[in-house]
């Protein structure tokens, strides 16, 4: 670990308890925020994401989607060309033309996001002004918002954060006491949570983002804000600026995380603990049963996380505490200490957490540690497999329903499948 020591920066102030956090800088092997569009465009059913960028941006989203989606996608790229850069064409006129063509083709669209990219940021194309101008023009049929998914400002899931943060100023105001669950969740997970909150006696409960542009939840000083995803720093800040109070909690992965998450919500909303206990007893027990066979497979297995989605800390906590895995290194693109406080407290003290990345040095450490399971991005998985390491590609952890009790077994299965498969295959 001498390499780590070189890059360690001591944070100012008093030493903090919990795992050791090291910052690393160098080549990063991560997606940019545009990638979030791959799931966001399915979540809000009448929203469209128009990236204002280069051919690279278009190629990225198309490639990151892995398989192309059969239906006409609700995203597209307005590709900047040399005429725009040379000033021969006014970028704003061009953008208006593209948006008009798009909205003519898709009259079902109610919410249009202009998504900034690396090139649009570098040439300082003012998408906020463009969004205002276009909103006025297409009101009331379509609302136009903007955010940046550029790689120079956002990493992967931070694109969802930027998108949701852009929605916050548009939310209606309300003084009503309510619970707002924040983060794009699978519909099935959302329904399970609605039922659980109802059983616990928490009402009303709203979700951000909603499934339709016309169903934006209200926010105000009596809104309790519960993050379902660990990467929503900006969104939380914007909601807090509108008076919402954040409920500090671990994230709802695994039985423990889900219980702590629901408990924090119940306490904050003044719900009865016994009612909570009754509501979760059955699904908790069911989830433990579903986890048991996976625990048998993962107990004692040594796991290495490359940075990807900011889900790394809660997932590592789940692997260590509920499945008995041993953690070698937890890489994360960014560590939000405040939002992660509950997770940091649950993680074992002897695990190095590496914030940022120098991919070559991290690969050196990974090879030296020879983990039983490596969680990494799509660019690294097959090369590591070819070197003999079992890998789980991390993008799947975002593309499948993983939150809550009923998905705990599925989440564990994502980690055990590569191991199970290795045990099955002969003659390699």
């Amino acid at each position, binding site marked *: 670990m001498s390499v780590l020591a070189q890059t360690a920066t001591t944070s100012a102030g008093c030493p903090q308890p919990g795992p050791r956090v090291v910052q690393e800088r160098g080549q990063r092997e991560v997606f940019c925020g545009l990638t979030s569009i791959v799931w966001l465009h399915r979540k809000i059913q009448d929203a469209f994401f128009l990236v204002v960028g280069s*051919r690279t941006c278009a190629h990225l989203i198309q490639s990151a989607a892995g398989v*192309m989606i059969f239906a006409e996608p609700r995203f*597209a790229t307005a590709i900047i060309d040399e005429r725009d850069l040379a000033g021969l064409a006014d970028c704003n006129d061009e953008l208006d033309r593209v948006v008009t063509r798009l909205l003519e083709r898709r009259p079902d669209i109610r919410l249009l996001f202009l998504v900034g990219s690396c090139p649009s940021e*570098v040439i300082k194309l003012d998408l906020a002004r463009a969004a205002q101008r276009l909103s006025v023009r297409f009101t009331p049929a379509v609302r136009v918002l903007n955010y940046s998914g550029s*790689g120079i400002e956002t990493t992967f899931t931070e694109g969802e954060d930027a998108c949701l943060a852009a929605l916050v100023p548009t939310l209606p105001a309300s003084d009503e006491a309510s619970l707002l669950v924040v983060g794009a969740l699978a519909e099935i997970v959302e*329904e399970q949570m609605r039922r659980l909150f109802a059983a616990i006696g928490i009402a009303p409960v709203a979700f951000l983002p909603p499934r339709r542009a016309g169903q934006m939840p209200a926010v105000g000083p009596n809104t309790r804000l519960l993050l379902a995803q660990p990467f929503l720093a900006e969104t939380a800040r914007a909601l807090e600026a509108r008076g919402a109070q954040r409920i500090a909690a671990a994230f709802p992965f695994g039985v423990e995380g889900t219980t702590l998450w629901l408990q924090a919500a119940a306490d904050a909303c003044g719900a009865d603990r016994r009612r909570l206990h009754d509501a979760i007893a059955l699904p908790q027990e069911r989830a433990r049963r579903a986890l048991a066979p996976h625990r048998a497979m993962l107990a004692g297995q040594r796991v290495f996380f490359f940075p990807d989605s900011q889900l790394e800390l809660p997932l590592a906590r789940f692997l260590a505490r509920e499945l008995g895995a041993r953690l070698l290194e937890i890489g994360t693109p960014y560590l939000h200490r405040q939002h992660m406080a509950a997770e940091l407290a649950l993680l074992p003290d002897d695990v190095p957490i590496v914030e940022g990345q120098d991919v070559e040095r991290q690969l050196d450490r990974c090879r030296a540690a020879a983990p039983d399971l490596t969680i990494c991005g799509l660019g690294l998985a097959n090369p590591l497999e070819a070197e003999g390491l079992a890998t789980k590609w991390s993008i799947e952890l975002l593309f499948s329903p993983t939150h809550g009790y009923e998905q705990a077994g599925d989440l564990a299965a994502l980690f055990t499948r590569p191991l199970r498969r290795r045990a099955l295959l002969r003659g390699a």
Partner: protein
Amino acid sequence: MQLTLWTYEGPPHVGAMRVATAMRGVHYVLHAPQGDTYADLLFTMIERLPERPPVTYTTFQARDLGGDTAELFKRAVRDAYDRFRPELMLVGASCTAELLQDDPGGLARALDLPVPVVPLELPAYQKKENWGAAETFYRLVRACAGPAAPPPDMPRPPGTAPRCNLLGPTALGFRHRDDVQEIRALLERLGIVVNVLAPLDARPADLARLGTADFNVVLYPEIAAPAAQWLRRTFGQPATTAIPIGTQGTHAFVAEVAGLAGLDPATVPATPSRAAWYARSADSTYLTGKRVFVFGDATHAIAAARVASEELGFALVGLGSYSREFAREVREVAKSHDLDALITDDYLEVEAAIAAAQPDLVLGTQMERHIAKRLRLPCAVISAPVHVQDFPARYSPQMGPEGANVLFDSWVHPLTMGLEEHLLAMFREDAEFHAGAAPSHLGAAAPEPQHLPVWSAEAEREMARIPFFVRGKARRNTELFARERSLATITVETLYDAKAHFGR
């Protein structure tokens, strides 16, 4: 600004990556923001290469923009050299770094590395992937072969075998590896030695030997044409123009290389393919006049048009390409079929053209495969852009005699077979045999009648939220679970109890 849903080609630096990744001993340092590293997955996930592409990205962030991104680039080049010790380095910028104007070439030269450094200027707002690959290959060939230029008109010593270079195959190419194997074997049967294969598997030192061949075989003009033109000018090497796709294309190619190699036409062995006989067999008469729409890169689209019309007896109802660089050639072929060529990289335009033509078969790229799926038309893929399915585990070339066989199989199998087609026409009312049914050899499952427990409305709603591709299995498992426990009604709880039970 151009509105783009799907793109046929990536940016030009991805073309450069395809060349760098195909070669050995080359490392590419790309001045690019962090998200651009997505390009690695094209090679590791789509082509399933067991190594990372030899590319270092500077991955600058917003906070670096105020500082010294040029210094960041220099550090990345130095570190990459120290770590990978390549025989040659490529340096360049992606679209965003192009706007910073840091001059990667000048910065890298200033480092005075002990290996050749080839700077790439790939205008990202103007050009695309194939152009980028062609430009990169041309720059590499110039840099490596230029200093090694032999004196012109140096005759081959008598008695030595004719030699050619095999140019064009890259990483992430549509069946390039299999084509190379097929064409290399074909050339060897003719007694022609492959001097250098490039860029695939070539080292910089191999490129330095390019000038010692008698002629060049250009397999993929989209990638190798500029390099072959330079080699012609510099070394007087002629290059092939025939593309060995299809039985006739292969014959024309063999005749051309025999001429360039100075072989006696009488001694050239025949290159029979099973496809030619199959196409003549009685069974194939139903292929006559099937209406086919062709779209792809120029080389594959032109070849497919020829094979479809002259070797399978299809009728061409549309021909197009996204390769603007070769628009003239595509237009000429289209004209000979009384068609207007569709030269576009706008997916929506292609979709509209296919919908209007209503062909019996679409021969296209993965994009057209999706269009065809939506329009419920049979389709076979003939060209990049590639998908993981375009890297089959089996040997499956598009070129040469075996390539002709592969084309026959993969174009004919998606069609409804001969007699079945007649029966469909005769008995349209039949419940299982109607026009909307899939051809029988493409398979369909029969439903199984069962006495089932009753689903509660709430459980049905929950089921509808389960992804469609696992819904059938989830339904069967839940019902089995309920039957085993003699449950009369399936509730949401039953659904999740069954999930936990079968999930283990």
